[in-house]
């Protein structure tokens, strides 16, 4: 696993074709690389740099800014337990302690089987559902210790219905040729091709 595989490359090229300037595709391509390998490898960054025509250091500069783009291997499932104020008041610290004990790792660590990486995170904006956590950025609300144990069992068994780390959507978006703005930069193009498809939009437009 290193550079983008032929199938990833085909997707990458489709993503690049959506943007008037290739480097705009940088972040979607980093997600694609993470989907392929579970994390963003240096080789993938170098490959992306080639694809969008920037220096590898610039790809690194962007990639390292985003916490969600992992540059070292993580488990198949990232379990992020919130430790914000609401969650803390409703027992997230106990939940974290329990997770440490059951999984045998500290926050930031990955279990020996490579399945689960535990992280303690700041507020994930679901305070009404505290204590909450995310599994590969999918929410689990009002998590009790029992819920957590069941979750771990499901994750290990592969029955939790959560895609492996890096996969952002179960369905990949495809933009048909008829919906594209075209190869030219958008300015001076007049009305985009897709706008006329919905008559009410076209009327509401400027």
């Amino acid at each position, binding site marked *: 696993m290193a550079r983008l595989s032929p199938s990833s490359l085909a997707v990458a090229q489709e993503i690049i074709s959506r943007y008037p300037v290739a480097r705009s595709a940088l972040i979607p391509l980093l997600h694609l690389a993470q989907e392929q390998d579970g994390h963003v490898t*240096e080789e993938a*960054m*170098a490959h992306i740099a080639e694809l969008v025509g*920037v*220096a*590898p*250091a*610039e*790809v*690194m*500069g962007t990639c*390292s*800014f985003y916490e969600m783009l992992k540059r070292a291997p993580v488990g198949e499932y990232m379990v992020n337990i919130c430790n914000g104020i609401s969650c803390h008041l409703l027992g997230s610290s106990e939940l974290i302690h329990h997770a440490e004990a059951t999984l045998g790792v500290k926050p930031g660590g990955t279990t020996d089987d490579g399945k689960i990486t535990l992280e303690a995170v700041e507020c994930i904006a679901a305070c009404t559902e505290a204590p909450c956590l995310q599994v590969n950025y999918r929410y689990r609300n009002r998590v009790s210790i029992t819920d957590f144990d069941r979750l771990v069992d499901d994750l290990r068994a592969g029955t939790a219905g959560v895609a492996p780390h890096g996969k952002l959507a179960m369905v990949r978006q495809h933009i048909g040729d008829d919906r594209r703005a075209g190869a030219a930069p958008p300015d001076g193009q007049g009305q985009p091709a897709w706008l006329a498809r919905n008559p009410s939009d076209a009327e509401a437009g400027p």
Partner: protein
Amino acid sequence: MSDQETSVNITVNGQPVQAVPGEWVIAAAERAGVYIPRFCYHPRMSSVGMCRMCIVDIDTGRGPALQPSCMVAVSENMVVDTTSEQTRKAQDGVLEFLLLNHPLDCPVCDKGGECPLQDQTMAYGPGESRFVEEKRHFEKPIPVNSLVYLDRERCILCDRCTRFADEVAGDPLITFQDRGDQTQVNTFPDLPFSSYFSGNTVQICPVGALTAVPYRFKARPWDLTEVESTYPNPMGDRVVVQASRDQVLRYQGVDSDAVNWGWLTDKDRFAFEAGASDLRLKTPLVRGTPLGRFDPAGQELVEATWGQALSGAAEAIKAAVADKGPHSVAVLGGARLPNEDQYAWARLAKGVIGTDHVDAQLDDGLPAHAVIGLPRATVSRACAPGGTVVLLAPDPKEEQGTLYLRLRHAIVNDGVQLIELTPRATGLSHLAAFRLHHRPGEAAAVAAALMGGHIEAGPDGAIGGVAAVDVAAAAVAIADRSDKPITVVLGRPSLAESADFTVGAAAELSRFANLLSAGGRPGIAFLPALHRGNVFGALDMGLAPGLLPGRISLAEGGPALTESWGSVPAAPGVGARGILQAAAEGRIDVLILLGVDPLGDFPDRRLAEEALSGAGVIVASELFLNPSSARAHIVFPAAGFAERRGTHTNLEGRITAQRQVVTPPGTARADWAIAAELARRLGADFGFSSPEDVWDEIARVAPSHRGLSLEAIEAAGDGALVADSSIAFAPPEGITPVPAVDAYSLRLVAARRMYDRGTLVQHAPSLAGLAPGAVLALNPYDFDRVGVEPGAVVQVISSGGEVQAPVQADPGVPRGTAALGYNHPDLDVRDLVDPGTAVTDLRVQTR
């Protein structure tokens, strides 16, 4: 500037100031004598407002407010207060923040004593920090390349180095990473900051985060003595030369508006190491007995006194002239010497000895008439907004680093359109409006079509290998912009082909100069880009066959100069190739080499070899023993850059001063003194006792330099431009068209790279290892045709000989062409170049 439309009235600290519209407040204030402290702002780069140090009170009619003066443009009636209590408090606070993570290791930091952070903390900062927590920690200096170390703990994240890499050099190989509370500057893992310009980041770093390996821990700023001088490269980059204990330790670029804008290439910046090399010649050497008596039959070079060496040389010259006449003496080289030294040698050769067999170039440049006979451009003209630059030269990134930076800036920021008329891609290709990459040897056909609009494509729909539609489009683009200056950068794009092709292309371009300059339009001018430091001074000082000092021909200037010199050569001589041929045939009794190495540098090595064997007595004036001077019979140790005073002429014809800061090693002398001393022993008294005396004579006798005083050069700031020339460009006649390249062959392009086998590079320890590996570069589509695999080591065969080299794919090389670096330490392209053919065709086969 007092014009209403071109000025904006602002008030700075109560003083009325006239500013230029669009100017930043920080720049306007500085011109008015008010220095606003700053770290990230740099006048040659875009403003980013990273450091917040330049925050001052700015009132644009809504009351004073703190604003970063590097991000606010002047506006009418703006009131700026840099001394208000509010400003003072803001500066104090910014400095306290900047110092949160900055280690207080000034006593062991190289920047201490010349550190903007240190200075401004003293001037504007708080006396104490309230921060008691742990500072950020990073691994202490990490190399970002082999020349520059980065200490991330000291970095204040001003974005100067990263901005330089991206905006100025175009090598964005260092960036901010881990942005957040752990922001750091770094390279991509295992991909070093391999830029030719990395040393500039050290110079502009406002703290001690970036340090240059050759200078680290060598001196304290207050121990340095310094002079402002001109680095002897063709661009004439202005530098400050800093020395301590009689040793040059550092060059810093000086922001000269006309030339280098403060930038230097790493090759030039760190070449000072060569000056201090142990291998420098310190005493005269003669071939003879251990007592130093000159004996041409002697086997070994032994140390001698100056008297012995000079009289040995004088006797040899006298004997040669008496025996076979003055043209049995020849002078090669001198292109790296200051103007004064070149003039003294020219007068010795032409006025005293009477030989016109004098050539500063080694048949690897352009004929003198193509340099001083064509209308000359300046760098500023080439970079004028909206203009056109035609690149008919080798890659400026490899050979003329600071010119590359100026051109790059003009293309990116000032809308200059670049039209490449080169045999392969260059460092500017990705910015070029038109890339007319022609087949080697066929530039003239493309140039003719470009300027004349007569497009007669061959059966392949191409002219000289360039698609006719591209040439036509470029021709339209040139015509459309002909109300703005058109500048041709003119050099030798390849040493594997005859110079006639380039001169022929220049002739085609110049043919339309009158047409394009009609109706008050600026027309075409030429900016020659040749190799070797002061080659343009050498041509102006008459170190070329048929020329006399002051851009005048022997025939035209001879009578006038005879009055000052006593005599001039009776007949024109020949250039480097002719001299070496004559030597090979035994017609040269004394061959004088002025800092040149024909064995290493002359494009036809076999001829150079035969010439050195066939020459009677070889006299060399040199910094080092090189393969050629090691074969000399008499060697004078010469003083190098920073060891002597003089003047330098750059590619524009701009004359600037060079100054001395250290003493030459041993008994080495400046070349003007060697020439004068030799002349005295030949019965001619030049009356020179200083380089200033030599200059006075140049200003008296050289027509183009007449009346130009050293005071005027100094006073002009950016130097004085010499514009007059009475030399006429002579378009070459009857160039035989090159034959078509056959289906199995590739046509060779050989051009210099920045790091090569050159004397200075090889004697500077920090630079010697930087030459890239020798590779034969082919277009990716040619591998199948010639039947080799990328990466394979192949046998390269031409009519001149054969070599082995790995092949690599390079899309910048057009199909049918192959590219090799000239003067590479490992691979000698001259083994392939056949002097009998105008272009070099080669075949490759697997071993």
